[in-house]
């Protein structure tokens, strides 16, 4: 466990070391729809750019109205934390991400870059064709960049490694369905985040060692079970806070949480189509849940499967994808009588007020639990 936490804490050193060991290139990406398999097959390490707050006296010059996630991403480039990144890829996704990409490229014009169109309407009949075409474009770009042709065998290998990674992480999630799970939400989230900046072959080895150890652990304490919903996350501070007052996040509906691992690439002869279909078929993120909504059903399913007592919705201030989806999430939670607490935050956690909110929610949820269990 600590190995993942320490990689997550020292993620920049991990990537620098990976570069030294492999001689490969590191590619930064922002959005969970980025088809990492194609980069990995080209020998590139895809690293998710994660927010972390540091004093910021520069981003205001180029940004306005952005969520703090994207400000902090750009700030870290300015501070030199991402000096090992060789290239950046931007997807058709949230516009503040686009803006972070855009201003980063202005300040660091020598970075390799590419814009990959990922359909905003993932359920459309032609979305798979256009994404397939975009994947072949980016594959060629990677080949030009690295000077190396990507073979089918390399794509197959990348698909297998990524699918294995998803399966292993799903095992972690399954352990959290148990009563008194052996793993806490904060531990699981640190693994998830470390995994997103790691070489998946290395992460898989570590997970294969870790999961049997976890299964041998004694059951955890009785805790109120939460689902965490909202803007993507970049640390496990909120989970730790919830644990500090008697709760446990047993499941999430976050783009870089369950959304990252919930489905696999189903192998097909047309590898790029297979990869594209996996991304189109993944649980919709808020921005891509456009026509007939799928996201509320997914949230409900997760809530039932993981037997949650209550929901926490943590939304980033200025996060318009979640600002436009909250209505549907609230409606669902109200209809299904799941108690919830919504709060807005930036990349730092407003600790005391969040704690008060969570404690109040636990109080409400416990009343229901007490009655359901026949406790007095």
């Amino acid at each position, binding site marked *: 466990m600590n190995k993942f936490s320490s990689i997550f804490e020292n993620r920049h050193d991990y990537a620098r070391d990976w570069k030294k060991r492999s001689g490969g290139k590191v590619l930064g990406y922002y959005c969970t729809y980025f088809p990492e398999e194609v980069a990995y097959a080209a020998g590139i390490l895809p690293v998710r750019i994660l927010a972390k707050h540091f004093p910021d006296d520069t981003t205001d010059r180029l940004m306005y109205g952005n969520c703090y996630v994207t400000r902090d991403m750009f700030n870290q480039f300015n501070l030199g934390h991402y000096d090992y990144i060789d290239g950046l890829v931007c997807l058709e996704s949230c516009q503040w991400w686009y803006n972070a990409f855009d201003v980063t490229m202005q300040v660091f014009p020598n970075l390799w870059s590419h814009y990959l169109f990922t359909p905003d309407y993932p359920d*459309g009949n032609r979305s798979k064709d256009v994404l397939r075409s975009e994947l072949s474009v980016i594959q060629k770009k990677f080949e030009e960049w690295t000077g190396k042709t990507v073979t089918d065998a390399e794509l197959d290998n990348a698909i297998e490694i990524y699918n294995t990674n998803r399966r292993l992480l799903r095992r972690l999630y399954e352990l959290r369905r148990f009563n008194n799970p052996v793993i806490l939400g904060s531990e699981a989230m640190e693994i998830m985040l470390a995994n997103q900046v790691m070489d998946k072959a290395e992460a898989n080895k570590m997970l294969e060692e870790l999961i049997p150890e976890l299964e041998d652990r004694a059951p955890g304490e009785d805790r109120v079970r939460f689902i965490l919903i909202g803007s993507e996350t970049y640390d496990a501070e909120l989970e730790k806070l919830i644990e500090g007052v008697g709760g446990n996040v047993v499941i999430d509906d976050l783009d870089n949480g369950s959304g990252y691992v919930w489905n696999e690439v189903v192998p097909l002869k047309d590898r790029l189509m297979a990869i594209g279909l996996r991304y189109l078929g993944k649980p919709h993120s808020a921005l891509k849940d*456009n*026509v007939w909504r799928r996201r509320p059903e997914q949230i409900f399913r997760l809530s039932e499967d993981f037997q949650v007592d209550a929901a926490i919705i943590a939304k980033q201030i200025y996060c*318009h994808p979640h600002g436009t989806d*909250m209505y549907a999430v609230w*409606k669902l939670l109200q209809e299904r009588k799941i108690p919830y607490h919504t709060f807005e935050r930036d990349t730092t956690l407003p600790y005391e007020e969040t704690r008060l909110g969570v404690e109040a929610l636990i109080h409400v949820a416990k009343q229901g639990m007490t009655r359901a269990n026949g406790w007095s």
Partner: protein
Amino acid sequence: MSTNQLWETKPLEIWDRAKALRAYWQQSIDDSAADTKLLLAHGNTGDVSWRDYFSNLNIIEDNPVGAMMASTSDEFSRKSRLASEVRGWGREICGYVQNCWGAQFLGYQQDGSVFPYRDLSVPFTDPCDQHTKRGQQCMDLSPIPRWGGDWPIYLGEDDPARDKELIETRVWCTLKIIADIERIFDTEFDDASFINDIKTERERSDHGIRIMNLMTKTPSPLSQKDLYSFYTLGGLTRLPPEILGDFWQALIDEIQWRADHQIAAVGNERYRYMEAHPSPWHFLKYMRYLEHYGAVCIGSQYSQMMAGSVSWNKETKEFERRVIRKPEKDVENVKTREDAVRYVLTEARGHRFKDDEYFRKNEITDFAEGFGVQGAILALWRGGVGCTLTRKEQGLRLSKMGVRVLHYEGSQPGDRTDLDEKRFLDQIDEWMECQGLQKIS
């Protein structure tokens, strides 16, 4: 002429027609609640105006509705936004959208009449994420049919093979929407008129370029406030093409005459500034205030959007149509609905694939040069995304070419909450004075 007057002025004659058009538009909204026509939420379908070819479709764009609400009643628009926010919609969402759909949740309009509930919704995805998501407020209220249309984009070098795939995606989305509307509502799309209008579209869209070029003249023949009104009426309200065609022609004739005779919008014009994207509709009087300094707004990339995709020719000193991708078929050979859709979307390539974010920023300096501006007032809106994205970058680029930039902050043009009007005017005073300008009227 007063002593400070540098140019002759004259009221615009076309205003009466514009007012009649506005009344016609409002009436069509009111009627649609009562008549049997289908009501389409969001008529902003991008490059292909398929909405105009269903005879039983009324279109209400939420943007002009929301803008109108904000400018006419702060009380009602606040109430509407609150109705939206208490249901979970975030505060950072575009004020227009919150106003319009908040009234939907309340169930009535500003005048107390029943809110005209929509029968179908077709939001489109770019240039602003709010466009992608805003159709959901009416879609979530009741299970009305809804469609998504992708607006594929990319940055970087031109790639014809890549374009082809992106264009075909848009062609498919558009054809699917039309066919589904025909099937679900048992109604017919008027292919003949659609194809015919595409053949004459060039002539109509040239109007925008002509107006844009006329607006570069000194003195400016129209004020920006006038232009916004005409832009909203002529572009966003989705009036029938024959009505709009006549209106545009009359407008151009009048502007041309004014330019030929150096009839100014503002008689003491001695300083030209530009803007970027929408202004606070309820407080357009700041433009009048600036006229005391002889400062005239010549428009923005937003108000000149009616010209479509243009580029600045540094030699002829004119804005010209930009065509990056030529359709495979000539317009004369466009025979079917599919041909027509593909034709329009192929031609739109240069304009629409990564247009907004890219051109808005990279071509703002051409715009400033073309219009010969000395200053730029760039709003920073906290709500919405499309209305603010790249604004700071624009400011830096303009400053670098010697244009003096003033930023001011507010919520969003559809939301008065955070705009401190007094402070804004103080900022203007300071901005003008530090450029050596004093009030002259």
